[in-house]
């Protein structure tokens, strides 16, 4: 018994139990976006969050800040300014080449404690969620995961709304007690500002907070997934659902997608039936997308799917059931047999391009993909 007590006493105090007593939060001002990158390339969600962060910061009449961590990433600090940041913290060091929780979270904690943002935003990616969970515990503060709406009220409170109960509901989460208020947000939900090279801002170097020899985890290698669909960055998505009747019809969708320089997506029903891989799934537990053009083919339009694609600029729905809910959100609706209509659309586009090429042989028209 006495031995046990001794063991307890030897333990370090648990992390994340500060601060004690009253803290003056009024010095916390501004919005900080933590930029995620791999090999010097930023995730698009980071620029989208800078876009939304800009809107929140303007409403709060406070600065928009960005934090860039990595190795040889100074160009991303400039990019963050072009995408809306007023001030960028740059922690650039060889041992930070790969994301690892501790060295990255220590840098974030240092920046948050030194520069005191009232709101901290990150992408709800695997890395963003790993990092945000660690930081929120350390500070400690409240963290809302996977936000799909972000706003601020008159009391400078962050209103972070997120899907709950398998996307059947939305819940707005507040953190009144602590600062900063933290949230992660999904890719494709918010819109990035147009990249503007004439924007200016301040870049503040930040030193790493751990010595390389203190870091015990090691990233041995990164195996890039090849042939993986990138739904979140696609401008055109051709998605299919249960109405396709089987895996074969995805071939028709692929033809149309190829013609438009797009990618193929799917509803959960089609994925669950094993007709197409999970990395094509849009909506519930799949990707949230924001393409310029979205084809919903044989998709009834359950809310779980709609939350993932309703921000597409133009939606074309093709369904044999005129009562399908998907038509409520579609700009253009076609009631009919997808097996006839989809090939006809593919063909019509081909013909239009061929006619254009014949008229102007110097410039063959091929769709541009991003």
């Amino acid at each position: 018994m006495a031995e046990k007590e001794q063991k307890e006493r030897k333990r370090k105090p648990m992390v994340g139990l500060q601060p004690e007593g009253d803290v003056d939060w009024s010095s916390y001002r501004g919005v900080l976006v933590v930029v995620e990158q791999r090999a010097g390339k930023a995730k698009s969600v980071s620029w989208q969050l800078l876009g939304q962060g800009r809107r929140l910061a303007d409403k709060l009449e406070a600065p928009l800040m960005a934090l860039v961590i990595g190795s040889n990433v100074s160009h991303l600090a400039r990019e963050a300014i072009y995408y809306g940041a007023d001030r960028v913290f740059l922690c650039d060091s060889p041992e930070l080449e790969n994301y690892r929780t501790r060295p990255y979270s220590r840098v974030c904690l240092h920046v948050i404690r030194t520069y005191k943002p009232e709101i901290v935003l990150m992408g709800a990616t695997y890395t963003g969620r790993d990092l945000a969970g660690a930081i929120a515990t350390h500070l400690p503060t409240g963290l809302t995961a996977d936000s799909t709406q972000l706003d601020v009220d008159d009391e400078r409170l962050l209103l972070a709304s997120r899907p709950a109960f398998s996307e059947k509901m939305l819940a707005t989460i507040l953190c009144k007690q602590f600062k900063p208020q933290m949230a992660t947000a999904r890719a494709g939900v918010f819109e990035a500002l147009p990249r503007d090279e004439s924007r200016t801002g301040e870049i503040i170097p930040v030193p790493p907070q751990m010595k390389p020899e203190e870091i015990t985890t090691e990233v041995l290698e990164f195996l890039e997934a090849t042939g993986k669909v990138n739904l979140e960055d696609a401008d055109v998505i051709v998605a299919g659902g249960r109405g396709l009747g089987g895996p074969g019809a995805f071939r028709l969708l692929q033809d149309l997608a190829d013609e438009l320089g797009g990618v193929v997506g799917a509803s959960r029903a089609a994925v669950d039936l094993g007709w197409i891989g999970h990395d094509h799934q849009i909506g519930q537990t799949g990707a949230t997308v924001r393409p310029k053009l979205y084809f919903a083919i044989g998709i009834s339009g359950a809310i779980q799917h709609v939350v993932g694609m309703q921000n597409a600029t133009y939606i074309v729905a093709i369904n044999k059931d005129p009562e399908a809910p998907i038509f409520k959100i579609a700009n253009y609706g076609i009631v009919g047999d997808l097996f006839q209509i989809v090939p006809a659309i593919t063909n019509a586009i081909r013909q239009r391009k061929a006619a254009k090429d014949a008229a102007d042989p110097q410039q063959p028209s091929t769709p541009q993909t991003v």
Partner: protein
Amino acid sequence: MLHLVVCIKQVPDSREIRIDPKTNTLVREGVPAIVNYFDLHALEEALRIKDEHGARVTVITMGPPSAEKALRQCISMGADEAVLVSDRAFAGADTLATSYVLALAIQKAEDEWGPVDMVLCGKQTLDGDTGQVGPGIACRLDIEQLTYVEKVEYLDTEKREIVVHRHLEDGVERVKAKLPVLITALAELNRPRRASLPGLLRAARYRPIVWTTNDFPNIDRSKIGLRGSPTIVSKTWVPEPKQVNTEFIEGDGPEAVAQALIDRLYATDLPQKLGWT
């Protein structure tokens, strides 16, 4: 011998939860309570390590007395001991307060059964969907966290090293870490075993160990339950999809319909935005 702690949660099967169309509220009645899907994968991985290297597997949950059933399921699969951390004072906890209590419980499990080499959690719960409790526990215990693990490549108990594959959006990362670590499990990690007959017999008789606030003499009561939870749900609602004026395109045969659609699309700003000529 290795000591592995698996943190689980009993959750309502969210796939079974429906919205009452009249009241726009959740219908929770009759929704079955299950062991959180991903937690079963965490438990399975612990049991595999036990099979291969020998280990003591302790399962811990924070929840109401009814969560005992979930713990018995874990015992039936092969866990050695199961602890229910239960007290009205813990109710209303968000992820921050939850990770605090679970970290205290893990420390107490160390006092009872020896130092913990590995903590295993599911990647997220079906009802909370945040994935924040795992990182929260790792932080509080000051151990490494390896989240979203889809494969344990090897575990070297002599060198006390583990190599796992972490799943990311654009690929897979092989990471090496020193024990003790916390890992959070994806469904891809393994296939949870069925209960064995001896396991079922043991589970039927088994009474989980119950710890209340009184079992944690150093607990900071301002950090638990509703009071220790900085996040507040201010409102919930059922989202309405946006309404647009749909133009239905009709025509004489699929070719005419397709042509009409293409004409409409070319009349928008899409050709300019997408570089169609």
